[in-house]
């Protein structure tokens, strides 16, 4: 392993180069911009043999990828926030047509009001589109999830597009050490894309055709089955990655200091780094608290989560999104709904904290405060609001 220090976005672009996409189509948008600028340069320098298609919008970017994958190519895109919103229709189509892709999401809040800063509302809003969603804690994981993402997406048991989600600015613009695999190492892990079906004039097929009520539900069922199969395919691909390169990503949920924990914190993404520091400090002070980090949100690792939480007395969920209108009279994000579903029938209180929206900073002290609130049974609320709205 040889660590180098570089910006997260540049590391992602270098990882994508090593995945050898044949088509790249993206539209620049803050905070994803550095990724696609770097890739444009990599292609222009001849370091990656790919068609870099410049487009006039995110809708076109993903449509170009859709066509490329349908024609049998490995493709790549990246976006965030309003850009992802503009891709909404194409997202559903790609999953429905079972076209594998890896797209990086530099997670950012949704407008209005306009915010360029980080939360996870954008990818969460695409929850039901059929894409796999993987969330990275740091730039090393964000990089590695691209290699794993292509392996899983293109596996014939899955054939679904993947969003690799990493927090905008907090990871995308951060310089930190990463270990970049060599091209030979990536080639040994990630074989070329072998399409199961493709557009070919000699063997014509139709994709994305009309499905009458007699057939439509079966397509949705088959796509959902592919999500279920992806649970095991991700474990396999993560385990093999660990065997080859020493970083094991087979766990869909990561348990951190969960032995004998009474309070479990559940979170996704870069907030987990800060949470681990908070857990260490609380453990030093004698508090039995741990973190369960979700690496996949789709497919949701329901059984893995149940196992990770067995024996805990209470659960605090950190939601970096809000599901507006959910929860009746209390406030809830999307993650807590899944956690409650996983723990249904268990007598464990699960409380939600909508936190860190629109780039609001989350400190170690905030995580400790959340645990105190959870111990007092005070949750299902926004955390850290300005007092004038209360």
């Amino acid at each position, binding site marked *: 392993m040889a*660590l180098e*220090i570089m*910006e997260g976005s540049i590391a992602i672009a270098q990882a994508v180069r090593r995945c050898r996409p044949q088509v790249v189509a993206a539209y620049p948008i*803050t905070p994803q911009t550095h990724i696609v600028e770097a890739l444009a340069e990599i292609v222009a320098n001849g370091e990656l043999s790919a068609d870099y298609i410049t487009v006039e919008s995110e809708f076109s970017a993903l449509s170009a990828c859709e066509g490329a994958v349908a024609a049998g190519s490995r493709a790549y895109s990246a976006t965030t926030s309003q850009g992802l919103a503009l891709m909404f229709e194409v997202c559903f189509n790609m999953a429905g047509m079972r076209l594998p892709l890896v797209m990086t999401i530099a997670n950012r809040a949704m407008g209005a009001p306009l915010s*360029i800063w980080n939360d996870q509302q954008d990818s969460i809003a695409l929850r039901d589109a059929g894409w796999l969603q993987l969330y990275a804690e*740091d730039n090393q994981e964000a990089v590695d999830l691209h290699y794993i993402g292509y392996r899983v997406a293109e596996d014939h048991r899955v054939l679904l597009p993947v969003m690799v989600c990493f*927090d905008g*600015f*907090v990871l995308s*613009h*951060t*310089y*930190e*050490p990463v270990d970049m695999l060599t091209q030979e190492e990536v080639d040994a892990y990630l074989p070329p894309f072998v399409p199961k079906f493709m557009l070919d004039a000699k063997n014509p097929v139709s994709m994305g055709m009309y499905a009458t009520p007699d057939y439509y539900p079966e397509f949705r069922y088959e796509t959902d089955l592919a999500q279920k199969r992806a649970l095991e395919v991700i474990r396999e691909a993560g385990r093999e990655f660990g065997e080859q390169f020493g970083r094991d990503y087979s766990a869909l949920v990561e348990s951190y200091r969960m032995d004998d924990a009474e309070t479990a914190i559940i979170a996704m993404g*870069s*907030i987990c*780094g*800060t949470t*681990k*520091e908070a857990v260490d400090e609380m453990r030093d002070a004698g508090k039995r608290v741990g973190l369960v980090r979700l690496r996949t949100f789709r497919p949701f690792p329901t059984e893995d989560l149940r196992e990770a939480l067995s024996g805990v007395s209470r659960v605090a969920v950190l939601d970096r999104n809000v599901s507006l209108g959910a929860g009746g009279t209390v406030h809830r994000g999307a993650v807590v709904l899944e956690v409650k579903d996983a723990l249904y029938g268990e007598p464990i209180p699960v409380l939600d904290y909508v936190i860190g929206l629109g780039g609001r*900073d*989350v*400190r*170690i002290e905030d995580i400790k405060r959340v645990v105190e609130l959870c111990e007092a049974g005070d949750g299902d609320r926004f955390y850290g609001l300005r007092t004038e709205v209360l």
Partner: protein
Amino acid sequence: MQELRIHGRGGQGSVTAAELIAVAAFEGGKYAQAFPAFGVERRGAPVQAFVRFSDRPIRVRSQVYEPDFVIVQDPSLIRDVDVFKGMGSGGIAIVNTEKEADYPVPGGVRLLTLDATTIALETLGLPITNTALMGAFAAATGLISFEALADALRHRFSGALADKNIETARRAYDEMKARAGAS
């Protein structure tokens, strides 16, 4: 772990300074993390950038609230922003100013000034002060070596521009060495 906070205005290169200081620290064998906190993305608006240094991998992602070191690129910021906020005993603040500094700093903080603007004008021909302040940081703290900083500058800039930036950093480094040693 030690933490640095850089205060500047959009266009002054605060983010680049944070990145290159992190690169130099990493080359010197430390774990380092550098990241920006943008307000509005436009020239002239107050900007902060942060660097963390540690002997272990760095996991915390929040902004820096209790910095060991502060760099202030533009003294006019001191009127608008509490640039020394959160500093404590043993801290070092480096302010770019041509005047004698009489800013109130928290107890135990060592205030060092440097006329980085004049150095930059004389060496680069532009009032871009970040390179000079990187050199001053190396001299005042010893956290990064001048050689590692020069390597980072050579990697970021090319040709004559790299040479000019290294010269800028060298002048600031030498001046700050003399000052920090004397006071």
